[in-house]
C-alpha cells in the first residue's frame, strides 16, 4: 500500500479552517504600515548623503585652517537627540547592526587610487594615566585628530592632533590644564617599515577582504589580532577596522553583519558620541558602536566601565568617546607649518614616529600612559606600534 510510504493528507486536515476569510493587501493596514515605515525610513537614510554632499577639503586648506575647519564641521552636525524613527518593540543588537549594514551598503564612498591618501577627521576622548611616585592618576584627554594614511601603505602618512581641555573622571583628580602648543604633528611610517602600524590597517588590504559575511566571519576569527576570547577579539577587531578609515561600503556592510552574529551584544538607546550627537549603540562588554538613530550610519564609538574602577569611576562611566566627522580621498599631504618641521612633515621612509619609543607617554589601545618623570619610562616589549609592556622606574 503506497499510503505507508507517502500517506495522503487526511481530507479533514486540508479542510480545517479552510473557510477562513481572505484579506487583500489593502485590508492589511497594520502590516502594510509597518513595511511602509521601514521603506520610508531607508529611503530617507539613502537620500541623506545625496542631499548633503560631502565637501572634500583640499589638504593644504585643511592644514592651514585645521582648527577652524574642524570647528566648522562640528557646527554643521545636527545637535541634540535626533527624532525617533519607528522602532520595533524589541530592538536587538543584531537588528541594529543589520540595519547599519543595509545603510552602509547603500552609502557610496570614493575609491582611492593606491598612490592616494585616506583623510579622516575625528574628535576623540580617551583615558590618560600618569604613573609615578607609587600612584596612578587618570583623567580624560580630548583631541581633534586629522589623519592622512597611504591607501596602499607604501607612503609615509601624517597625523595632526589638536589637544582639547582635559576632563575629570568621577573618581579621579582634577586634570592638569593644557600647556604649550596644543597642535602636534606626527609622521606615520609606511606599514612596510619595522615598527609601523599593521598592514591590515590599509585601504588596499581592507578592499581585498571577502565581503560575503560568512567568509569574512571565518577570516576574522582565523586572523584575530589579539589574545582575548574569540568573540571579544572579533568585536574589538571589527571596531579597529572601522576606526579612522574609509571602509569600502560592501566591506562595512559585511563587518556589521558579522558583528550581528557575535553573541553577547546589547542595545543602548540614546548613546552620545564625542560631539554630542545621540544615536543607538550596540554594546559588548562596555565597548560600543554608535549609529544614527534614523540613518544607521556609524557616528562614533564609546567605551563605558562595566564595573567600578578605583581612581576612575563607577560602572557606566564613559571612558572613551569618538566621533568620526569626515572621510575623504586626497592626492597629497598637507604642508606642515615650517615651525613644526622638526616634529613631523616629510620624513625619511621608515623613520619611526617620533612618539615611539622616546616619548614621555605610550598608548595601549588608546589608553595613554605617562610617566611623571619622562626619563624613567622603560619600554619592555613592543611589536609594531603595539606596546605590550612598559614601566615607570620610580
Amino acid at each position, binding site marked *: 500500500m503506497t499510503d505507508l510510504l507517502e500517506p495522503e493528507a487526511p481530507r479533514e*486536515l486540508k479542510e480545517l479552517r479552510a473557510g477562513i476569510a481572505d484579506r487583500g493587501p489593502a485590508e492589511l493596514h497594520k502590516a502594510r504600515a509597518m513595511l511602509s515605515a521601514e521603506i520610508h525610513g531607508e529611503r530617507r537614510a539613502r537620500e541623506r548623503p545625496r542631499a548633503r554632499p560631502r565637501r572634500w577639503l583640499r589638504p593644504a586648506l585643511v592644514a592651514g585652517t585645521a582648527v577652524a575647519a574642524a570647528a566648522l564641521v562640528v557646527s554643521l552636525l545636527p545637535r541634540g537627540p535626533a527624532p525617533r524613527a519607528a522602532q520595533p518593540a524589541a530592538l536587538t543588537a543584531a537588528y541594529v547592526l543589520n540595519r547599519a549594514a543595509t545603510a552602509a551598503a547603500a552609502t557610496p564612498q570614493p575609491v582611492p587610487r593606491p598612490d592616494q591618501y585616506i583623510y579622516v577627521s575625528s574628535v576623540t576622548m580617551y583615558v590618560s594615566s600618569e604613573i609615578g611616585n607609587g600612584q596612578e592618576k587618570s583623567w580624560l584627554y580630548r583631541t581633534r585628530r586629522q589623519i592622512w594614511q597611504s591607501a596602499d601603505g607604501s607612503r609615509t602618512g601624517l597625523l595632526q592632533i589638536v589637544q582639547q581641555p582635559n576632563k575629570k573622571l568621577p573618581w579621579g583628580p582634577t586634570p592638569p590644564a593644557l600647556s604649550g602648543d596644543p597642535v602636534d604633528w606626527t609622521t606615520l611610517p609606511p606599514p612596510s617599515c619595522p615598527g609601523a602600524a599593521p598592514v591590515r590597517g590599509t585601504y588596499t588590504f581592507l578592499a581585498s577582504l571577502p565581503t560575503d559575511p560568512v567568509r569574512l566571519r571565518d577570516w576574522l576569527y582565523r586572523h584575530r589580532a589579539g589574545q582575548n576570547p574569540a568573540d571579544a577579539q572579533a568585536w574589538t577587531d571589527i571596531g579597529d577596522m572601522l576606526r579612522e578609515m574609509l571602509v569600502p561600503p560592501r566591506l562595512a556592510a559585511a563587518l556589521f553583519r558579522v558583528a550581528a552574529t557575535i553573541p553577547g551584544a546589547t542595545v543602548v538607546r540614546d548613546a552620545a558620541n564625542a560631539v554630542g550627537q545621540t544615536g543607538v549603540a550596540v554594546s559588548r562588554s562596555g565597548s560600543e558602536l554608535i549609529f544614527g538613530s534614523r540613518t544607521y550610519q556609524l557616528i562614533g564609538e564609546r567605551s563605558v566601565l562595566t564595573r567600578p574602577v578605583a581612581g576612575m569611576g563607577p560602572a557606566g562611566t564613559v571612558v572613551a568617546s569618538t566621533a568620526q566627522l569626515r572621510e575623504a580621498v586626497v592626492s597629497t599631504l598637507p604642508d606642515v607649518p615650517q615651525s613644526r618641521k622638526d616634529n613631523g612633515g616629510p620624513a625619511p621612509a621608515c623613520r619611526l614616529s617620533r612618539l615611539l619609543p622616546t616619548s614621555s607617554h605610550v598608548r595601549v589601545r588608546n589608553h595613554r600612559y605617562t610617566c611623571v618623570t619622562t626619563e624613567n619610562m622603560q619600554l619592555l616589549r613592543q611589536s609594531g606600534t603595539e606596546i605590550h609592556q612598559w614601566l615607570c622606574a620610580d
Partner: protein
Amino acid sequence: MKKPVVLGLTDDAALIERSRTEPEAFAAIFDRHATEIHRYASRRLGAALAEDVVGETFLVAFRRRDSYDLSYRDARPWLFGIATNMIGRHRQAEVRFYRALARTGVDPVIESPADDVVTRVAAASQRKAIAAGLAKLSAADRNTVLLVDWAELSYHEAANALGVPVGTVRSRLNRARRKVREALGGINPILSAEEHDR
C-alpha cells in the same frame, strides 16, 4: 488557492533585486504575497495575530533582501520560511487554540460569524480530532505538514522554506500525517469497534 507564479521581468527575484536600490519596489512583494501569508498565519493563529505575523514577516524579509538568493524566482518559500519563524513565536497560543477546539468543538481561531459560520458552530468530531492531533505534533513536524497541506508548498519549496533537505520534509510529513490519521482513527466508529475487539 495557489497563486500563479509570474515569471519574467517582474518575477519576485527581479522585484527584490530592484528593491535593493529602490526600496519602494518591495511594496509589490507585499501586495503579491501578503494575502496568502495572512491566510496561512490566520489558519494557525487567528486573524489578529496573523496580521502581526504578516507585518513582521515582510519587515524581516525587507531587511534581509540583500541576502536573498536571486536564483529563486519565486519568493514564496522564502516568505513562508520567515513567516514560519514568526508564527513559532506564538507557539503556545497556537497549541492552546488547537486544544480548545479539540476540547469544546468551538474554534477560537474563527473569530466572527462572518468568517465561517458553519465550521465555527459545527462541533464535528473529526475537527476536534484533527485539532487534538495537531496539538500533539512537534513544532518541526507541524511546520512541515502545514506548509504542504495548508500553504500548498511543494516538497522542494517546503524544504527551502525550512532550510532542511527534501528527505527531511518527506519523513516529517509522513510522521505528521500518520499521527493526524491516528487521531482521526481514535474517533472513527469502525476502528474504535476493532479496538474493542482486541
